[in-house]
């Protein structure tokens, strides 16, 4: 089993599924000869040719719309948007069309498509290159939003996303792209969608996160373990539809919960999880549900991005508040 980075796992999954399924095509800006600005599509052009590896003009609305058109014809479109900050021009196409064709035609047409994009910050990228878009999409009915947090999950979830019969927004954690490696077997096995993954079991507190913030959340759990606090760490993986059952079960056990997300706090997806806890978990909670999130500011340029992005220190601070209110 090769030890690979998250971006290599994405690339592997694309190769693997294009090999297996002739109806899969990839499209986007600079994804052909250039292999994508992060090299996610490296080698696809040489292996599968220009017809299935489509370099598009610089037009994100078109990329989304083209994916829609392709997918209605049985061609599984896997589109790349260069950075999630440039996904906004796709919003209209996704919510008003991709999410709806199946429903509005009562099943006659459908859009088995994926839109992939690097998401969130932390790599000192230029302006507009470090945004967190998950909530904007997760609020839309009729689609799925998936966010991997490790090479193996990236591989398995991307396969699942491509095979899913409905539109999937697949948000890849930019700053984890090359941060660490994992052994990933190219076995063509998809991971399950629509479920959360328990990253590690614990009994004192439930930490919930997804995407890039999973990394800091894991580090925070390590730190807590050293202090004798046993944290259960849950990776949402599929944000929409949300598998609250797993989270509720965990919180029923731990009685404490801290949510970690990078997108702006107000109306972020952590709020959705917390709202469900306020409804279904209230009676099992020993302490308030804390959200560690990006501030409600514009994502700052590189010099200040670390002020904005939650980190281990901020996670631990909220965890400590919880244990102050409800000591172990």
């Amino acid at each position, binding site marked *: 089993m090769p030890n690979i980075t998250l971006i290599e796992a994405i690339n592997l999954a694309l190769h693997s599924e294009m090999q297996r399924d002739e109806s899969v095509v990839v499209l986007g800006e600079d994804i052909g000869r250039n292999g994508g600005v992060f090299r996610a599509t490296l080698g696809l052009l040489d292996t599968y040719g220009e017809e299935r590896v489509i370099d598009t003009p610089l037009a994100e609305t078109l990329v989304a719309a083209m994916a829609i058109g392709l997918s209605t014809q049985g061609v599984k479109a896997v589109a790349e948007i260069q950075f999630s900050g440039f996904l906004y021009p796709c919003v209209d196409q996704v919510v008003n069309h991709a999410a709806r064709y199946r429903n509005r035609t009562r099943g006659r047409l459908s859009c088995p498509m994926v839109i992939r994009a690097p998401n969130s910050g932390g790599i000192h990228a230029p302006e507009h290159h470090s945004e967190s878009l998950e909530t904007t999409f997760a609020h839309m009915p009729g689609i799925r939003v998936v966010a991997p947090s490790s090479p193996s999950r990236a591989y398995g979830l991307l396969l699942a996303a491509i095979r899913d019969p409905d539109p999937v927004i697949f948000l890849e954690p930019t700053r984890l792209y090359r941060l660490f490696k994992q052994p990933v077997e190219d076995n063509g096995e998809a991971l399950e969608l*629509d479920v959360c993954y328990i990253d590690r079991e614990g009994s004192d507190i439930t930490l919930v996160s997804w995407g890039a913030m999973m990394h800091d959340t894991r580090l925070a759990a390590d730190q807590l373990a050293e202090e004798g606090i046993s944290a259960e760490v849950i990776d949402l993986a599929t944000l929409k539809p949300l598998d609250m059952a797993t989270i509720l079960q965990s919180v029923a056990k731990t009685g404490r919960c801290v949510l970690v997300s990078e997108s702006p706090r107000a109306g972020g997806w952590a709020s959705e999880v917390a709202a469900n806890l306020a409804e279904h978990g209230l009676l099992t909670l020993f302490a308030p549900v804390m959200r560690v999130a990006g501030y409600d500011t514009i994502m700052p340029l590189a010099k200040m991005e670390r002020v904005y992005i939650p980190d281990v220190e901020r996670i631990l601070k909220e965890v400590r508040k919880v244990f102050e209110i409800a000591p172990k």
Partner: protein
Amino acid sequence: MTTTDPATRKVASYDIYYTQILNPDASINGELPAFARDPQQLRAMYALMVQTRLFDKKAVALQRTGQLGTFAAALGQEAIGVAIGHALKQDDVFIPAYREYGAQFARGVPMSDILLYWGGDERGMDYPQGTAAYHDFPLSVPISTHVPHAIGVAYATQMQDRKAGREARVVLASCGDGATSKGDFYEAVSSAKVWNLPIIFLVNNNQWAISMRSSRQTGAQTFAQKGLAGGINGEQVDGNDIIAMRLVLERAIQRARNGEGPSLIEAITYRLHDHTTADDARRYRPEEEVQAAWERCPIKRYKAWLEAQGHWTAADEETLISEGTASVEAAAQAFRNVTPEPPEAIFDHLYATLPKSMQWQRDEVAARGPVKGGH
């Protein structure tokens, strides 16, 4: 700027043409195309135009009597829909805006489906299996945003047809004059020729976008020239002239089928009705303008010409009206008779399979049953 300046030279030139064969006074310019020498085809086209108008009238009546929601009439624009319906082949793909009922009928959409749609029932977009329309797209209300779907569809059909070694299917996306102002329209037009796709962009220039005159949409003198932004052949045609309309369309379709790439056709017509039944056009346009437009009505001139050619008689007309009216009434009845969907149907085509985490929502709705104010 002149070419006599030695520092400046001409690098490209473009001409925009306008085609009109059947004039408003029922006279003919030039030679008739082959299809226009075939009485059967001529009669079929006429019948479908009249059928569209009868349908339109009924739909408006249903709306006025509270039996239908907002409805967008095709009045005065029947030649466009009918030309599309006759020019496309079964396996071609039609991506309509919302005023091309004639084309939809020709492709097998039951009139009752259109009523269902405007009546607020999604099942009106589930066109019957076995018809050409089964692979077509449903009406698009968000203006222009359906147009770039044509790029993906045509890319797919081109890839599939090449692989299968079969004749190219053609994709036709239609939209209004107002729709050409949106970026979605342009992103499609700008890119279609990059892959030499077999696409027809058909612009129904009915002179108005709700209350906005077409001249207020853009500084361009013609809508046809918007094709030049994508290096696409753009031309104008009298959209009230069914013969020119079909001819220009068939030529463009043939070019697309031959691998000569996309075309843009601006069909010049007039919206004789209000924008929709929710609109009152008297607020913003003079009655005389509408009256004058009636003189250019596509059905009137075509009927006069057919009669003059001896292809149509008063008896034919009578039969057509009575049979057409009956079929429209039958469609209205079918529409009224449709059994309401159960409330929980709002969940049943959201995803291929309803996610487990959403089951409780469906259960809640099913348990509650029909809701006041629904249906």
